[in-house]
């Protein structure tokens, strides 16, 4: 019993020690609530952008996301952010029905809101000041057209975030731009699972000559590996949305054709800068800011690899 009380006292002392930075709060605080899990390489780049924005603008930033892709939990995180009355709120909006009421509550509380990444179509309606992101369907069309130009006829769209409308739009845009037959392959965000499923899909349908993955680190790299294992490198053109160091190496070496850079670093960085300036001077750009797309082909790949490894692209 005694040792337990000592332990409890130690725990209390520890919590007090941790509590000190909370007391020394700066007055400008910006909270980011995204749907991206911290273990997703894509979102760690956004998070790096947020942190850099906070540092450059000398404001305090907090990045929050639910542990799984869970819209109900994300709405609750937005409510929690609103309760803390930050100087600005940055949200991604993958599901406007589920998140809308919470975002409108933030607006009603007088908190300036910027949306980023997903939700460009509903951003204005929900009261956000502007949206920083990529038009998904248009980006899908551009990628599809490029893949068609490269000679693709039968496509596979690898979706690792089943339930996210933005990703559904990417597949849809891909289908429209590509013109040929496109099948959607739903997978989890576990690379081993994706590799196995893509391998099975290309084995089951030998006519597949094009694969578009919807995330580089999560779906793109395992897709390249699966195509390699199936011995079809070159015969199947692999492209991906977003970027990772590994996928870019494949682009540079010719195993993959291109990566679509939505420059997500800016989706974290710019909203922080905008909201900090808004808090300080009331300044705000007049409309949505497109952060991408930017097709990274073999020629551009090498220079981008360095930055990707650093978590900036």
């Amino acid at each position, binding site marked *: 019993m005694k040792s337990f009380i000592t332990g409890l006292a130690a725990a209390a002392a520890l919590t007090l020690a941790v509590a000190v930075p909370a007391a020394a709060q700066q007055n400008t605080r910006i909270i980011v609530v995204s749907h991206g899990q911290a273990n997703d390489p894509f979102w760690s780049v956004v998070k790096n952008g947020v942190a850099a924005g906070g540092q450059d603008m000398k404001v305090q930033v907090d990045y929050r996301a639910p542990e799984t892709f869970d819209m109900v939990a994300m709405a609750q995180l937005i409510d929690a952010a609103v309760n803390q009355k930050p100087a600005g709120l940055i949200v991604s909006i993958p599901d406007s029905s589920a998140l809308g009421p919470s975002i409108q509550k933030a607006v009603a509380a007088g908190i300036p809101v910027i949306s980023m990444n997903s939700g460009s179509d509903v951003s204005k309606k929900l009261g956000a000041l502007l949206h920083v992101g990529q038009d998904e369907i248009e980006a899908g069309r551009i990628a599809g057209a490029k893949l068609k130009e490269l000679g693709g006829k039968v496509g596979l769209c690898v979706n690792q975030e089943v339930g996210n*409308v933005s990703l559904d739009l990417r597949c849809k845009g891909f289908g429209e731009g590509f013109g040929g037959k496109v099948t959607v392959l739903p997978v989890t965000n576990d690379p081993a699972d994706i590799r196995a499923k893509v391998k099975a899909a290309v084995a089951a349908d030998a006519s597949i000559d094009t694969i578009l993955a919807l995330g580089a680190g999560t779906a793109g790299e395992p897709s390249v590996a699966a195509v390699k294992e199936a011995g079809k490198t070159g015969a199947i053109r692999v492209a991906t949305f977003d970027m990772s160091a590994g996928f870019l190496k494949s682009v540079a070496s010719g195993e993959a054709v291109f990566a679509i850079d939505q420059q997500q670093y800016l989706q974290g960085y710019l909203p922080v800068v905008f909201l900090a300036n808004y808090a300080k001077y009331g300044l705000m750009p007049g409309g949505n800011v497109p952060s991408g797309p930017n097709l990274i082909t073999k020629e551009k790949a090498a220079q981008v690899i360095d930055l990707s490894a650093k978590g900036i692209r």
Partner: protein
Amino acid sequence: MQVAGSFFFTDPFGEALMVNTTQPTANLAPATAVKAIQDERLREVSLLTKIMRRPELGALAGLVLVTIFFLSTADASMFTLAGIMNILSPASQLGILAIAAALLMIGGEFDLSIGSMVAFTGLVFGGFITLSGWPLLVAIAATFVVAAVLGGINGQMVIRTRLPSFIVTLAFLFILRGLSLVGLKWATGGSTQMRGIGDQAGEGLIRELFSGVAFEGVFSWLAAHDVIAKFPNGTPTVTGVPISIVWFILFALAATWLLLRTRAGNWIFAAGGDANAARNSGVPVDRVKTALFMLTAAAAALVAILTVLDAGSTDARRGFQKEFEAIIAAVIGGCLLTGGYGSAIGAFFGAIIFGMVSIGLTYTRFDSDWFQVFLGAMLLLAVLFNNFIRRKVTGER
């Protein structure tokens, strides 16, 4: 005697004894009558000891510990009225599942399919509303029927095959999750998200019972008299109690009453403690277990209906990993993995601990990368503390 429940007799002699004491008096009268006065089962214990021996005490102590942790580390806004509602809404959704899971665990079985059941019944409900265009009341009733049938299938498979429920329901975890995806794409023409359910459902009394907030009048009155905080535009920061919290509390009360004050409650303890002994004493074990599986499935359907109506949409990932969270909450609440022991009110507190930890961390200054580490550590701490308290006061195990 009959209604005393098992709690007052949880001593080192274990569950076989508990089973006996939870039987209706008629069934065990000859056994106890013989030994009479010296029998330690009839010994008087003080009220304090009675309170201390309840399984939910540890969970309550764990809740106090977690509250102290957040009082010292989190932003002060966490414990405002709006902050507490914010903690209780995830707690209530999880709690409805956790209480049902607790009853099932006391009955000696697991259901790992409840998370997937949330997604699947959400889709079924959404389909009834948007595709079939059924009125809300019919859609809700039909959803519960579908859930109960699925739960009944789970239960019957476990009973007839004699396989561990862990394995049978694990299979349903995958089957239902997969069916949710297939069904969503079929229903929406390729999307993994079904929207517009909220708009189609219409307004009215039934809608108000399953979505939005309760006691709005009270809260706007309180805000008008400056008792509770308001936004700059004059609306109160809390417009009412989210309806899921009301369901959560009512369900906890009903389940506690069922366990402690009814014959069915005694049957549940008996079925989970020692199914054979219970059968020999005339407890309809198979029917009790099947009913419990149907109840957990119906609880999942209730959560699905509440979240789908509130969010206005459903997607293939709803309820992901909720089965584990529900079982964790039930265990924090004092349920034993072996069955035959536990409480509904303990699961109630367990779910609140879970909600407080999962939302509370966003009120602190910890980097979110550490989130899961903290979540796991806090839960472990709560369970250890709970276990420690229970051992100290009951001297058991």
